[in-house]
């Protein structure tokens, strides 16, 4: 019983990552109609925002310590972060310890700026172009972003640990413990999802963007500057992806190709949810997360060998065959 409960938690937790990435993707893909293969790269850049912040915070003042030798037999260097020098050891180390949550503040402006530049500089020219062209250009962009990150940060994963206070396990139900940060991630993604929904629900923004997607020209005729809204939408989507990345860091160490790892999966999630449907994307994210978790249970793998490898795709196929437009897709969107 506990095992099943735990897998449900795992599923929710995995699902919240899927849902969050799919949410950003569907904002661009389902609402703006752009097949954005660079979305994974945005997620990755978010994660590297926290790597960068961590590096900035630990920028160090180097002194030579002649009593210790390094691997070549030279006096070794002692590093003291400037932060520690300025704020004292306690405060300084606490700031460093909390670098991931702090990175949220750091990442929002960066992601908005990246989204802005990306949309104005590139994507803008591709709204009317075929999806295939969008794929080519955003894939090219994804490669470029990825290679740049690789160039500066290397190919190995880089740990961005959660603050000490949140890195242990916590008791979520009697007898069931679960990693604290994963619980945080789950709550965080619910908050973001809720925020985005509220924004689109309680303002006319969502309707305008949807209308603009369906028929830019006519919306322009009604006096609405749709370009500006598209840009903003793109910025929001980029930020959602980025924040998903920032908070994901402590779960799995960021590396330069983590975006590509999620890309295909997030497309599957969006499509299974149904094009143009935000609730669909979120629902599909959680559903696939939970199913994936169950499929990785030993009992099930022994029953059907290899099921854990293909479960997501299998479910996607079944759902798309049973429900032509995914779980909650709207008619005519990218059919």
């Amino acid at each position: 019983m506990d095992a099943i409960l735990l897998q449900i938690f795992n599923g929710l937790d995995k699902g919240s990552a899927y849902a969050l990435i799919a949410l950003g993707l569907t904002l661009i893909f389902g609402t703006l109609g752009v097949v954005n293969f660079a979305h994974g790269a945005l997620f990755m850049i978010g994660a590297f925002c926290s790597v960068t912040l961590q590096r900035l915070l630990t920028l160090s003042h180097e002194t030579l310590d002649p009593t210790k030798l390094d691997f070549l037999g030279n006096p070794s260097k002692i590093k003291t972060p400037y932060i520690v020098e300025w704020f004292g050891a306690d405060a300084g180390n606490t700031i460093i310890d909390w670098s991931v949550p702090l990175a949220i503040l750091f990442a929002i402006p960066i992601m908005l700026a990246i989204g802005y530049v990306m949309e104005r500089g590139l994507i803008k020219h591709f709204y009317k172009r075929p999806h295939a062209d969008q794929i080519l250009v955003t894939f090219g962009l994804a490669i470029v972003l990825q290679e740049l990150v690789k160039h500066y940060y290397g190919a190995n994963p880089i740990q961005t640990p959660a603050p000490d206070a949140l890195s242990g396990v916590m008791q979520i139900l009697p007898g069931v413990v679960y990693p604290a940060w994963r619980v945080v991630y789950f709550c965080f993604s619910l908050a973001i999802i809720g925020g985005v929904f509220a924004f689109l629900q309680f303002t006319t923004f969502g309707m305008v963007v949807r209308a603009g997607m369906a028929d830019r020209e006519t919306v322009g005729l009604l006096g609405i500057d749709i370009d500006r809204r598209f840009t903003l939408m793109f910025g929001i989507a980029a930020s959602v992806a980025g924040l998903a990345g920032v908070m994901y860091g402590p779960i799995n160490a960021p590396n330069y190709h983590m975006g590509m790892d999620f890309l295909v999966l997030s497309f599957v999630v969006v499509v299974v949810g149904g094009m143009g449907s935000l609730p669909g994307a979120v629902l599909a994210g959680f559903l696939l997360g939970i199913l994936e978790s169950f499929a990785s249970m030993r009992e099930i793998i022994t029953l059907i060998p290899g099921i854990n490898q293909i479960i997501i795709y299998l479910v996607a196929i079944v759902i798309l065959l049973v429900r032509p437009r995914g779980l909650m897709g709207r008619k005519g969107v990218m059919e």
Partner: protein
Amino acid sequence: FTNEPTGNTVTLGFNVPQSGPYADEGADELRAYELAVEHLNGGGDGGMLNTFSSKVLDGTGILGKKVEYVTGDTQTKSDAARASAQSMIQKDGAIMITGGSSSGVAVAVQGLCQEAGVIFMAGLTHSNDTTGKDKKANGFRHFFNAYMSAAALAPVLKNLYGDDRKAYHLTADYTWGWTQQESIAAATEAMGWETVNNVLTPLAQTDFSSYIAPVLDSGADVLVLNHYGGNMVNSLTNAVQFGLRNKQVNGKNFEIVVPLFSRLMARGAGENIKGIVGSTNWHWSLQDEGSKAFVKSFGTKYGFPPSQAAHTCYVQTLLYADAVTRAKSFNPCDVVAALEGFEFDGMGNGPTLYRAEDHQCFKDVLVVKGKENPTSEFDLLEVVEVTPAAQVTYPADHPMFAGGNLGTCNPGA
């Protein structure tokens, strides 16, 4: 024979992963190759040439020909690796191909070299198959393998954790993972451990939570992670997140074992690696003359110590050059003959034998542990034990290595 060097230079092909998850490892391998070429051509401080037991190399290249090299990107895909090797052979006239950072690639390129008639000096490849089921006459492996890891680890694990343990394996679902799991399970069961479970995880898995969670109440008290690279970093991180290291099961501390370690990956795993036991082919902190010489020349040139991948690649290059020089011929068949049964020392792992039957090197294996209090960013592993070669040697017809056929050496057209 293929690509017989006619001018006053000889070209070697360094085929390493430059893109993909193992790019950093590939970059380190490339550094080692460049260093080896420099040393062979008489540049630098000579590195291991000074400590190598065979003294025929004199810094004038190979057989008097200056060593040149070409590089390529394997992308850690067997197709791309073969394409890259093909171009080195067909276009650049490479006489020997070396490198790689995964067993799949090593086996694929080894097969190609056999067909094309050039020598393949494997880089980092740990699967039993490379010199087992898939061995080839033209291919040679200096790196150790899963069986040797297991043989070296088992006694240490028994010392550290006792002989009454229940092990839970998570295994990457492809050939390397399987051979390692098989080897470790066999070795640990031989000393009394019980394998309660083995769960295969998809290669593309990034979040291992749903595999780790069941470990909590499986009754197991040891978790063996048969993962490498990014998989290893993630599964280990997840295992620590779930609090496995602070758990008590069956009245014992829960332990995690990562049979194949590398320092680069250890860095990726950060804090989580502390106190975790595993095995490795070589580590820069070794204090023998060969290792010291290599670390010194590598460290001086690049500013940081070499990885085990760099070490094995460097050594392979020297071994090849040495074999050619001793054979006085670049003909692959002569080189094979010179390498088969070759015994040497001074390369960092003690006295070593290149066994003729399967072209596997037999040498000391290091059992290491994640260091609790690292003094620098490179000082992540401490050597727990150096398991002597004899203890990890197995008969050439061991069942885990059965099924292959070395064939005959192919000198090509």
